[in-house]
């Protein structure tokens, strides 16, 4: 213990280049031996270790002033010499074995075990830590959305507001839990309410380009807002949302809507409000063959939205879609077929063989570029000449692709294709995966599900709300009667119809002479 006394300082004598005559009484060890005694086991034990009397206590004075200004004194540079001194001073710690044995659980066995474990485990341990950190660093918007959906599920909150979350993708797995949504029953005794929720999903102002198919399986969905996204196409499965009351599709890049959306206007549907504009919808281009000039056309267009339906029946344009009389529409909506394009026939790979080409999907194109000429009444529905007879049977490519889509391994199948294989197959598999994700598509003629469409055409339907009878007074006012051209055009909604074979084409219709009533329905 006596050795613990501080040693006298070594004084460097620069003239002799040696330590001064006052030699140290004790040899300085080259390095301090490791501390051998174990820490005490019980708190009541007197800690004999000299570590408790660490030199930190001596540096207490280095900090002055209030705590928020505390900085090590060395920063100020004023006490450099002092620090120099302190460095030279011997560290105040026990340098020898106390000789007192204190029990520890450390045994030779444990040490070897540690060695054994630490070796192979170190690598995966580090890896896992890294991934965990990266996850922590940036939870993706989708993960946040998933969290919110989980919260809504737990709290029974029916309106799921995911607007302005910067979502770029939304997967089926995120939406799927909502299918199990149940209302929290009220606690009041004797009161019974339905536990079926009225879900409201707001996805406005995100960057979604595709929608998950599960979204359209939520048949309890009443409000769906997709405003301000980057959707190019709406999946056909949207027609399954039979309880939808409000649908907002404005401010997207939609060129057309699926034909199946008409199911939302059927007699037993509940759709009340629909926002479609602005979008990049294709507009019909009516033929101006006769010498009658634009005025007439404008008049005709104005007449379109009004009661003067006689004008509508100008031979070339008007053809009633075959389904129309079979269906009954909701009384709140006025749904009428207006025109259609010529049929596009596609080959087994989905490339155009015959028919009009759709305007390119370029951003910011002028509205005139959106126009597609409507089909003549005398439009030939003849498919392109082919040596094989026409058949409704799917192609082998389609059948094989459908089998691929049925497997659960669909996303990985493209990796199994050989390197030198045709690149078109990868595209087809990607299409199939996307289609499966968004809920599949069915032929609008024969209701067979398909992956590669063989025919497609756009029909323009007038979708407008019927004015209430009570409000006829206001409707009769001159302001209401003058519908401007824009309104008329906007009420014409392009609907994409697709067929699964070259025989799935619109029926040839003869001009109906009767049923103006049916059309006004």
């Amino acid at each position, binding site marked *: 213990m006596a050795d613990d006394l501080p040693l006298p300082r070594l004084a460097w004598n620069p003239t002799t280049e040696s330590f001064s005559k006052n030699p140290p009484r004790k040899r300085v060890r080259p390095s301090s031996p490791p501390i051998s005694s174990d820490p005490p086991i019980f708190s009541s034990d007197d800690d004999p270790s000299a570590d408790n009397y660490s030199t930190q206590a001596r540096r207490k004075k280095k900090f002055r002033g209030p705590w928020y200004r505390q900085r090590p004194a060395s920063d100020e540079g004023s006490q450099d010499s002092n620090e120099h001194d302190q460095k030279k001073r011997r560290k105040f710690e026990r340098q020898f074995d106390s000789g007192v044995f204190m029990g520890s659980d450390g045994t030779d066995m444990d040490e070897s075990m540690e060695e054994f474990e630490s070796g192979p485990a170190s690598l995966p341990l580090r890896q896992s830590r890294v991934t965990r950190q990266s996850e922590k660093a940036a939870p993706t918007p989708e993960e946040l959305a998933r969290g919110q959906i989980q919260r809504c599920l737990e709290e029974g909150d029916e309106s799921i507001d995911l607007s302005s979350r910067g979502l770029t993708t939304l997967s089926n797995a995120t939406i799927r839990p909502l299918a199990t949504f149940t209302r929290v029953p009220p606690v009041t005794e004797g009161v019974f309410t339905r536990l079926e929720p009225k879900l409201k999903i707001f996805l406005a102002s995100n960057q979604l380009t595709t929608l998950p198919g599960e979204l359209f399986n939520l048949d309890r969905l009443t409000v769906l807002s997709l405003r301000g996204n980057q959707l190019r196409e709406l999946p056909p499965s949207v027609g399954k949302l039979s309880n939808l009351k409000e649908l907002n599709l404005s401010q997207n890049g939609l060129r057309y809507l699926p034909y199946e959306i008409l199911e939302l206007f059927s007699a037993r549907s509940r759709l009340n409000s629909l926002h479609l504009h602005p979008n990049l919808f294709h507009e019909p281009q009516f033929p101006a063959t006769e010498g009658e000039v634009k005025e007439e056309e404008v008049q005709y267009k104005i007449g379109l939205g009004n009661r003067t339906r006689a004008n509508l029946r100008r031979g070339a344009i008007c053809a009633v879609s075959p389904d129309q009389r079979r269906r009954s529409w909701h009384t709140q909506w006025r749904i009428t077929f207006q025109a259609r394009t010529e049929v596009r026939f596609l080959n087994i790979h989905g490339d155009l063989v015959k028919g009009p080409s759709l305007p390119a999907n370029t951003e910011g194109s002028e509205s005139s570029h959106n126009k597609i000429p409507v089909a003549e009444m005398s439009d030939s529905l003849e498919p392109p000449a082919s040596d094989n007879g026409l058949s409704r049977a799917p192609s082998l490519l389609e059948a094989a692709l459908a*089998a691929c889509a049925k497997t659960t391994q669909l996303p990985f199948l493209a990796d199994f294709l050989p390197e030198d294989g045709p690149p078109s197959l990868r595209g087809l598999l990607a299409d199939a995966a996307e289609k499966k994700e968004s809920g599949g598509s069915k032929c609008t003629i024969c209701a067979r599900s398909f992956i590669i469409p063989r025919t497609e055409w756009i029909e323009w339907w007038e979708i407008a709300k019927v004015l209430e009878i009570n409000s006829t007074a206001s409707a009769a006012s001159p302001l209401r009667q003058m519908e401007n051209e824009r309104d008329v055009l906007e009420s014409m909604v392009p609907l994409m119809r697709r067929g699964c074979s070259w025989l799935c084409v619109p029926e040839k219709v003869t001009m109906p002479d009767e049923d103006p009533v049916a059309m006004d329905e």
Partner: protein
Amino acid sequence: MASSSQKQGSSKYVTLISSDGFEFVVLREAACISKAIKKMLAGSFLETKRGDRCHFEEINGIVLEKVAEYFCYNHKNRNREDVPDMEIPPELCLELLMAADYLDT
């Protein structure tokens, strides 16, 4: 169906031969749905020097059997309104997809 029985009338039937030597005899009319087979039979390829026989070096017997089955399925359903689906086992789907692309069917 696809049976490797004896040929009957070289003009009416064609024989498809797989890479591992299986032979399938199919109606010429049915097989000609495939544009590739049609061209082969027209004699523009080396494979068909011997008349009505098509050798497929890249298609094995299991897949070619399914292809032959498809030809019959397609031929049988060519005039039907409601066409049933063809059963394709999942383990064959990718190879069949490549075969379909090759045969242009």
